Every structure is written in C-alpha cells, then in structure tokens.
C-alpha cells in the first residue's frame, strides 16, 4: 500500500541530526586531539586529514592512564563514584518507577507530572540549591539540630566523596526514573498474572518475572545517566572543590578552559569516549541477548 522508501524516510531527520550535531562535532574533537595550536593565540588548530595527524599529545595522555599515574587515579575514582551513584539511583528510582507503573492508579498522572518537574529547572540551579540546603547553616542542618538527631551540624560540603556521590544521585535520578517507568509499563501484565496463577508469591513473581523483564529498562536507564556522569565536572566543583574528589571531567575542563594544550583535553575526551564505548558495547550485547531470549 505504501512505497517501500516511505518508512525509512522517517529516519532521515534523525540521521541528519546525528551527523550534524554529533558526528561532525565529534570529528572536530578528533581533529583537535591530533592537530596543532595557533602559535599566537594558542587556540586549537584541528587537523582534518588523518595522514597529517600528530599523535604526540594522545600518546603522552595515554601514558597518564598507566596504573599509578594521575589520570589512572582520577579514572578509578570517577568509575567508583559513578558505580556508587548508579547503584544509589537504582535503589531510589526503581521502587518509584515500579510503584507508579504498577500501583498508582488515580495518582499516576499527578506523579508523572511531579517526575517531570525537575526537568523544568536546569541541572546547575538544582546543584546550587543543594549547596544552599546542605551548607553549614542550611535548612538540612537546622532540621537535624532541631530534631536532636545531631548535636553539631555536619559539614556536608567540606570536600568529602559522599557529598559528590549524593550530588550525582540527586542530579541524575530523575533521568533514570522516566525511562525505567516506560520499560516497566511495557511489561505484559498477563505474564505476571500467569505467574500468580501458577502459585508464585508477589515477591517471587517480582523476582522471577518482573525483574528479568525489566532488565533492558534498567540497562537503558543506567546508560542514560552513567554516560553523562562520567563526564560531569560541575557536581564535584560545586559540592566539593577538593583535589580528593575531582573526576575525569574536571581534568578535561582544565585543558579545554584555556592554555596551550587543547589537544590534551581533546585526547582525554576521546579516551573517555573509548572507555564508555566499551561499556556501551556491553549494554548492546546484553540487550541483543535478552531480546533473543525473550522472542526465541
């Protein structure tokens, strides 16, 4: 009824967007990583031709990732923070998404609207609000003192890693709940009914049916928040500012913010992208396997 070319045409805007707003800028980063600098202004001069690429910066940057060197320390620290923040986000976000998907009937629309509210406020403003709330004389400490839970106000913002991890959770958990909610909503309820009919308890049905079926959603939501977390530099700056808590994004920021070595910043960006590509590959292989198991 419809010509064969019609449906692929729907993909054209997305492909054009991908090329113009992702692939071209990404190639520009590659050009900077393997290019030179303007001798007067020390701006990056990208090299577009691979035959003319200068590998010095990349090789030097790679050495920094050898165990014991500075980038290795920062990469390990960043990975630990992201893993902890991801775990925390899942522990908070999964029950919320599960409740809205399965049990919120009359309140579902209201809860969905509340979930979307954080997106109305920029990430930067939400982090600054966090700083005000958790400052020494902020409302959180005032409440803790008033409720006699503590006698001296804790210093949340004195450069400790807990604050950074909590800041990451706070900043990114809204981005996890929505895709997870969509994935849970897609689970066929008849499968759950069948499990219950066959004698499974609610907990057993959750563990053996819901949880495995929501695995693609968990992975997808995790990817959505983990990837930007790896490049985050704003959160550790705002809630900590200590050398003990800098993430890889902070190192990239130093070199991109100025100075004669933009190629180092670009090299760090490419190496981080390579690391994340490995994680993405795991995600895609797992999804493919799960799809195969589900559909035979």
């Amino acid at each position, binding site marked *: 009824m419809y010509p064969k070319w019609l449906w692929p045409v729907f993909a054209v805007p997305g492909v054009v967007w991908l090329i113009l707003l992702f692939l071209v800028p990404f190639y520009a980063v590659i050009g900077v990583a393997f290019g030179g600098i303007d*001798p*007067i202004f*020390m701006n990056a001069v990208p090299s577009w031709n691979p035959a003319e690429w200068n590998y010095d910066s990349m090789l030097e940057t790679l050495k920094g990732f050898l165990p014991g060197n*500075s980038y290795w320390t*920062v990469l390990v620290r960043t990975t630990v923070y992201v893993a902890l923040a991801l775990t925390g986000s899942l522990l908070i976000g999964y029950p919320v998404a599960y409740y809205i998907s399965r049990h919120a009937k009359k309140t579902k629309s209201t809860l969905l609207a509340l979930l979307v509210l954080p997106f109305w406020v920029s990430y930067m403003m939400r982090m600054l609000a966090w700083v005000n709330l958790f*400052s020494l004389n902020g409302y959180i400490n005032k409440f803790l003192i008033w409720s006699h839970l503590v006698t001296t106000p804790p*210093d949340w913002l004195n450069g400790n890693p807990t604050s950074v991890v909590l800041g990451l959770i706070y900043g990114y958990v809204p981005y996890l709940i929505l895709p997870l909610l969509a994935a849970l909503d897609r689970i066929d309820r008849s499968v759950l009914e069948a499990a219950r009919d066959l004698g499974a308890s609610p907990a057993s049905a959750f563990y053996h049916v819901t949880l495995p079926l929501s695995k693609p959603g968990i992975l997808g939501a995790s990817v959505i928040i983990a990837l930007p977390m790896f490049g985050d530099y704003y959160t550790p700056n705002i809630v900590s500012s200590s*050398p003990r*808590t800098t993430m890889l994004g902070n190192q990239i920021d130093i070199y991109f*913010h100025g100075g004669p070595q933009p190629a180092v910043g670009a090299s760090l960006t490419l190496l981080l992208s390579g690391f994340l590509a490995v994680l993405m590959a795991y995600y895609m292989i797992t999804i493919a396997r799960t799809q195969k198991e589900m559909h035979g």
Partner: protein
Amino acid sequence: MNNRDSRIERILNRFNRGDFSRREALRALGAVGLVAGAGRLLDFQAIADEAGKQTGPGGIALSRPDKPVTLPLNGTPIKSGMEPEKGPFQIFNYQDYVDQKSVIDTFSKKYNVEVQLTTFDTMDQAITRLASGSVDMDATNIVPDRVAQMVAGKLLAPLNHDYIPNLAKNIFKSLQNPFYDQGSQYTVPYNLYATGIGWRNDKVKEDIAGLSNPWSVFWDDKTSAYKGYVGILDDDRESLGMAMLHAGEMDVNTEDPAVIEKALADLKMTVPISNPKMNITEYKDLAEATTWIHQSWSGDLLGAALFYMPKGTDPSVLSFWWPGKGKGTTQNDAWALLASSKKPVLGHLWLNHLLDSEVAYNNFTGFTGYQPAQASINADDLVKNQVIPANLKNVILTEDQVGAGSLQYCQLTPKGMALWQNAYARFSSGA
C-alpha cells in the same frame, strides 16, 4: 638581531607551527651552527639574542617588571579632536566587574550612547572569542600577561592619549608607563590587587600575619584543625606560585621543570593536612564562614567586607595579609580597544571615563571592591570615611608597592605555560 638569530627564529617559528618535526628542527639548527643547546632551545621554544631575552607569541620579547618591553605598533592611533561616533558601544568584561549604575549608565548619559556589556568567564575564553571573530567588541578588559599576545595577533588598536587626559592626571605614575606596555601604547590600567591570605579571625586562633612565614599556615599540621575550611585559589599560577613563595623561590615566572615539580610536590602536601577547596569564591566563602582560611586576592576581601557579610556579622572578623612588594605578587588588569572597532573615539572616551576619579571610586566602593589604580585612593581616608573597615586597611596598595621591582605573574612561553598547566592538573587530580 643578527642574521643567525633571524634564521634561528625562523626555524623555531616553523617548529612551533608544526612545519618541522623535532629531528628536522635539530638538523636545521645544526646547519646554522647551533649544536650545543639546540635541544634545550627547542624544549623552551625561545631564542637567546645578545640581551638573553625570551620571546612569546609572535616573537615579542617576554616582558618582566625589570625588563620592560615596547610593543610594536599596529597601525597609527586615530587623529585628535574627532567627534564620538553613535552607539551601540560594545564592552567585553568579566561578569560583575564594572558597575552598571556608576560607570556604564553615567557614560551612556554623558555621550548619549547605548552601552552593551558582554561577559566572559576567563581571559582565555575572551581571547579565543575575540580572535575567532565570534564577538564584535569595541573595548575589552585585559590582563598584562596577554597584552603582547593580542598585539602580536593584531587585535588591539594603538591609543591617542589626547583623548585620555585622566591617565596622566589620575593614575599611579608607576602604572602610566607599565613594563608590559611601555608608553601605554595600547592599554590603560584598571584595578590592582595583591595575592595573600584572607581569614576569619573569629574562627582561626593563630595570628597568621605574625608567623615568620605566614604561607606556612597551609603546610602546618595545626591547620588540620580547620580541615575542610581551607581554600586555595583555583588558578595554576597562583596556587603553584604560592608554594614557590612559601619555599623562598621568588621567580614566579620560572620555566624550570625542577622548580615547578617541587612546587607541585609541596602543594600536594597541603591536601592530607587541610583538604583545601580549590575555588575563587573566597569573597563569599570567607564572608559566610564556609571557609576560614583562604589564599585570597585583596579585592575579594574588600568585596566580602563591603557586599557579602551576612546580616549581623561585622566585617572586623576578616583579616588579610600579603608579603609586601617584591616578596608577594601584585597584579593589575587593564582596558584596551579593539583594532576592529568602528567606534575608536567612543572607545578612547570610555577609557578616559574609567579613569575618572569619581567614576573609579564609585565603581570600587559601590560594586567591585577592587582598588582602581587611582592616585587619589588613600587607605587612611577610606578608613576615616568608614568606607572600608580598619582591619582591612592593608588591602589598599600604595603607588610604591606596584610597578618596577614588584613581583608579578607575567607571560610565559607556550612550553612554560604547558609545564605550569600540567603540574596544576596533576595537583587537582588528587593523585
């Protein structure tokens, strides 16, 4: 410069641009008779003429307080006696660094012109945007260690001082002919500051100023009592420079890798002691007591006292110390006009307006907290008139504390900048 030096310079310029590999550059230098030291020359990207001067971007000699430089002229200044153009007039500046009411609006009213302010976060960002043409400005704030770079890139317009009588009339004599721009051919000075230590004397027991080496407060084990309440400036030159001054190394423009490496090692020692925060918000943090000891710019202490103290907290809780001329760093920034501007007369009038005593005073006391380079500014008068608290009298610099003989962070070669930047990145990595 003799013929051999010219050939060496051409080889180095081609090496800098990437036209020569290191091996090719070494071979070429050997061909002109420079064999011993050729490698080091490439490492530092400098040429040594008879005066032993290093050069920065564009081959302009690196200026120092004791080695003033006359910058090459890009074109000729505008003629005297011309009428100002119509607006809008575009100025380029850090955020919150020029008062809308006392400076911008008064200029607008005086010359019947709309002034539009565009801001930048860092000087690197500013220069990138100006060089790329992504912004079209008439006048810009600038720091001395980037003036030669912008002149080399032909971004700045030479000045006609006939339009700027306030420069000779009001400004510190020592800054009318600064080492980085002899003859003030391109710039006029704006604000001054010293780098020292700011602290809350109601929270910190120690008399920091009374210590034999006050910088040592960042390295003293006793400072661990203030863990989490200590701050260091988030700036590669200032932070590593502080470690150098603490160790008695006074050449804060060094490009010696060993000296920079030692400063890095020293700076890392502060982390287990006091876990310092790296930021430039001490004007707020000291006022709000979220930081108690902070490496500070003098203007930020005044800003804290004048504008950021919480209700009920007296500014007398703030204290400041800096080492003094020749032992601690001072800095001034400046304003310049862009060569691409179509409103050069208005630009000159803007510079003259900034240097007006009343305008500069109101900008300082009503908004920025940073001392302008005005000869009329006097610490005793400011205290007497209750403009600044007596405990912060020492943030006001006198004329003899700046200019020749002072310590100042100056332009480095690209290799030197890379050494400092890499050291700072390693410090901030926490490794």
